[in-house]
């Protein structure tokens, strides 16, 4: 049994290793925001698209194809002048303003540094609501890494229990952790 558990533990850990490192690093950043610089690099460009577009979604997809911009279309809204929308990938936000009468288009790109990308990836999840396939695939990977994490916790505890020589010391630690968790949960949920 111990060998089987160890193999499952090892496989889950090896598969999830890059994701767990990403989560650990970005969690440190979020817990200590002052240690890192998150200021994005900003670039701007102005160009002209065909005037008179009255379909914001089509306009956005045409722009993405023409300017080789990939990401998820967000916050599309009609304004007095034309359209405003964002095209978003984790760590990169393109903000676009389009003038309906003249076709004048303003594109502002905010690109986060490496740690900022990790932060955004940490928050990216979900498999069903994205119209950008890589984000959906990322959601699948997040789900697999999450299952691996639960598996690591479960097999880890089971292996520890089978290692008789470390039961007593481990019981103190796991007992403290479970008692603390139960107490905080009860206080917060019933308080």
């Amino acid at each position, binding site marked *: 049994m111990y060998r089987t558990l*160890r*193999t499952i533990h*090892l*496989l*889950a850990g*090896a*598969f999830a*290793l*890059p*994701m*767990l*490192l*990403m*989560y*650990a*690093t970005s*969690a*440190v950043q*979020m*817990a200590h925001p002052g240690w890192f610089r998150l200021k994005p690099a900003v670039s701007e460009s102005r160009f002209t698209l065909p005037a008179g577009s009255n379909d914001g979604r089509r306009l956005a997809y045409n722009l993405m194809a023409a300017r080789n911009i990939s990401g998820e279309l967000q916050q599309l809204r009609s304004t007095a002048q034309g359209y405003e929308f964002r095209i978003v990938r984790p*760590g*990169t936000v393109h903000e676009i303003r389009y003038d309906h009468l003249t076709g004048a288009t303003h594109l502002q790109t905010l690109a986060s540094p490496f740690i900022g*990308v990790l932060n955004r990836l940490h928050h990216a*999840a*979900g498999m*069903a*609501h994205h119209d950008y396939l890589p984000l959906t*695939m*990322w*959601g699948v*990977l*997040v*789900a697999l*890494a*999450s*299952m*691996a*994490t*639960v598996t*690591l*916790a*479960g097999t*880890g*505890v089971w*292996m*520890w229990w089978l*290692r008789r020589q*470390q039961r007593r*010391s*481990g019981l103190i*630690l*796991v007992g*403290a*952790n479970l008692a*603390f*968790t139960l107490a*905080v949960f009860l206080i*917060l*949920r019933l*308080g």
Partner: protein
Amino acid sequence: MTGLVRKIHIWAGLLVLSQLAIYGIAGLTAGVYASRARPNRPRSVRHVSFTPPANATDRQVAGLIYQQLRLPFTRPMPDWFLRHTTDHHLLLDFYNINGIYRVTVLEDEQRLRIEEIRNNLWLFMEDIHAATLADDGAPMPVRLWALWNEVALWSLAGFCLSGAWLWLATSRRHPWAWSALAAGSLAFAILWGTLR
């Protein structure tokens, strides 16, 4: 050396066991709930008498209500969070770790309507997993949880390193482990490259 690393790996794992399980559950919950709106239907509604002082600003009224109601695990309402209903009643959403206390100031009726919108246990775990010490204004139980979370997030980084050590020291030739690492790394690298 390997024996010591194994002991630390096990002890640290047991010390933050709940946090690790909650991280996994939070990831799965986020995967499900990211595509849905959070609960917005009140679990309970009650009314409390309240007469706002004459000429008080919305901000002052919000502060007074916060002081008077002392709703559990809420914090003072920031100015930018003040809203009004379509019929012009002041609407205060007091967010907390369990959901929202939605308070509507019914000035003409001289009372408050307090709706409790409660998150389920899965969403609670998703929210509690994100508690950090960087949030100075969090209620004390959440701060305590954040303290343990701090240990857990450093431990998580440590598990990656100590786990890799134990693998290479004891089961280096395990072919399936290398395959699993390659699969996870490849998927991560491809998506990283695509998303960048």
